């Protein structure tokens, strides 16, 4: 065996790539961090034998912004704005998991109207997030037109979110104890319009893809995962349910009043491949529509924030007439809230899977330690188990099947 000039460079990769790569028998290829199908800045160190993948090592951290560290220097209310930026395709769920942790710590009761509005926005954003996934997944596998259609529909949802929060994506609309403010008058008609308009489009997408022979060829039989494997690797959400494991946090540990809604959990076979994960995600959009419809029907009146002046700001109308309200207003926006000492753990079902928040408080107005368990972080960590044995082109389908967002992975 001849000495290769780059042999010493491979020394740090010992044990990570196979021994054949060290001798130069297989090819090491960097896919990313600027590859369009990695949806952000993911680098995959692929070891290829011909076109077949021998090992696959994801390298993350290119989008690491230190959100957890930055949040430690901010007050609780300011820290909520950082959570939007994690999974930027589904910001309300990020808000919710953090806000729920604060509410649990402070013992805040969220009014029913706020809960229902939260559910409507969460499910609409779940659809929006799945639309981005469907469009880019289609784009990567050659179904170009899907991208244009799904982004057109997503714009309707972002319009609704802008209407309530003032921002298309990073709304920070959920606050401890409820919402930033009540929804405007045009909210209910806008959501109703979307409910009338969207099912026809969803049926169109189904006709475009579901039995398309090229689509089936690219996704069927790729990266099959058994339910046992999926649980061991920490897969959650549609990636887990695509392998036939019936676990959805909305059903298992209901939050925000999800137990009041009637919806089904789409399940794939065991073992499930990329097509089954696609199918589960797609069917989830129908279920989200069902939830939004029920929530809109039962949308109650009443306040949208809890009535606890230590943890929620007073309404504007009170500030002019009440000295206490003025003091609370001033303390809330300058010093921030002081949750009691303790640690909490909250779990929700985000668009991509189980998202959890560990929050530790030392009684000061600043976050002591916060940690988010992001679904796609675990999904990418399972990639070295899923990819070997498949072709280079299949890695794009596998990545699409687990629906990654790099802001979510790196934080």
């Amino acid at each position, binding site marked *: 065996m001849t000495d290769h000039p780059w042999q010493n460079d491979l020394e*740090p990769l010992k*044990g*990570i790539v196979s021994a054949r790569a060290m001798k130069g028998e297989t090819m090491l290829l960097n896919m990313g961090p600027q590859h369009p199908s990695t949806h952000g800045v993911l680098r995959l160190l692929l070891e290829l034998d011909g076109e077949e993948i021998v090992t696959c090592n994801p390298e*993350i*951290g290119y989008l*690491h912004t*230190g959100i*957890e*560290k*930055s949040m430690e*220097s901010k007050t609780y209310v300011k820290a909520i704005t950082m959570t939007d930026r994690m999974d930027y395709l589904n910001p309300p769920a990020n808000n919710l998991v953090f806000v729920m942790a604060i509410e*649990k*710590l402070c013992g805040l009761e969220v009014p029913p109207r706020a809960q229902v509005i939260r559910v409507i926005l969460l499910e609409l954003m779940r659809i929006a997030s799945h639309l981005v996934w469907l469009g880019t997944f289609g784009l990567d596998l050659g179904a170009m037109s899907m991208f244009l259609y799904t982004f057109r529909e997503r714009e309707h949802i972002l319009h609704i979110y802008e209407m309530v929060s003032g921002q298309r994506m990073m709304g920070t609309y959920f606050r401890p104890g409820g919402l930033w403010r009540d929804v405007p008058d045009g909210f209910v008609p806008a959501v109703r319009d979307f409910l009338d308009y969207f099912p026809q489009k969803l049926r169109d997408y189904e006709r475009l893809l579901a039995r398309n022979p090229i689509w089936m060829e690219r996704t069927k039989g790729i990266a099959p995962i058994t339910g046992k494997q999926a*649980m*061991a*690797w*920490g897969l959650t959400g549609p990636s887990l349910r695509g392998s036939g*494991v019936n*676990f959805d946090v909305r059903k*298992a*540990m209901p939050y925000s009043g999800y137990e009041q809604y009637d919806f089904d959990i789409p399940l794939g076979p065991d073992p499930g491949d990329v097509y089954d994960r696609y199918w589960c995600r797609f069917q989830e959009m129908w279920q989200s529509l069902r939830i939004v419809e029920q929530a809109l029907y039962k949308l109650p009146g009443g306040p949208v924030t809890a009535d606890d002046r230590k943890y929620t700001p007073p309404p504007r109308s009170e500030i002019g007439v009440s000295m206490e309200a003025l003091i609370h207003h001033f303390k809330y926006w300058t010093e921030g809230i002081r949750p009691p*000492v*303790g*640690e*909490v*753990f909250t*779990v929700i079902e985000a668009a991509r899977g*189980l998202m*959890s928040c*560990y929050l*530790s408080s*030392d*009684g000061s107005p600043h976050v*002591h*330690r916060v*940690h988010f*368990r992001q679904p796609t*972080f*675990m999904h*990418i*960590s399972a990639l070295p*188990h899923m990819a070997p044995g498949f072709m280079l082109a299949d890695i794009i389908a596998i990545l699409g099947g687990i629906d990654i967002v790099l802001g979510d992975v*790196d934080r």
Partner: protein
Amino acid sequence: MQLKDPVASLRAELPGAVLDVIEALDETTVVTDRASLPHVLAFLRDTPGLQYNFLVDITGVDYLGYTPPAPERFAVCYHLLAMLSNRVLRVKVYVPEADPVMPSILAQWPAANWPEREIQDMLGLDFAGHPDKRRLLMPQDWDGHPLRKDYPLGYETVQFSFNWQEIDAKKPYAKE
């Protein structure tokens, strides 16, 4: 199947492993030590009636300067979920600053791979037995562990007339 209480079962089957139990805000925290951690986690997973079969998350916490003072500077929290009974349990281990080494549970829990690497990268706790010790999020040649409490955020102190000398002394001017 009869559901069992995790704390009572642990106390009965693994005496000495449960150092403390904290019940707060509908959450149960079992404090254990480093040596018995793999046994505690395996017991919680494999015992019928408990079956905490899903490792949700591993988190490291730095308690430097925390009031009330914690037993040791670092803690690692393991969050387990039982998918059959929908219960969550937190297993907590305190790690001293002088000997920041944890046992890796990767062999029993494949999902622990990246969370352990993340803690190693961000808090500087070593996971003995983990096969891949490269940094996960930070660059490979990075100095320090950002989530430690004594790691600076990078802001500069605001300069006033009374402290400008103090700030000026720390400024990185070019050396002569």
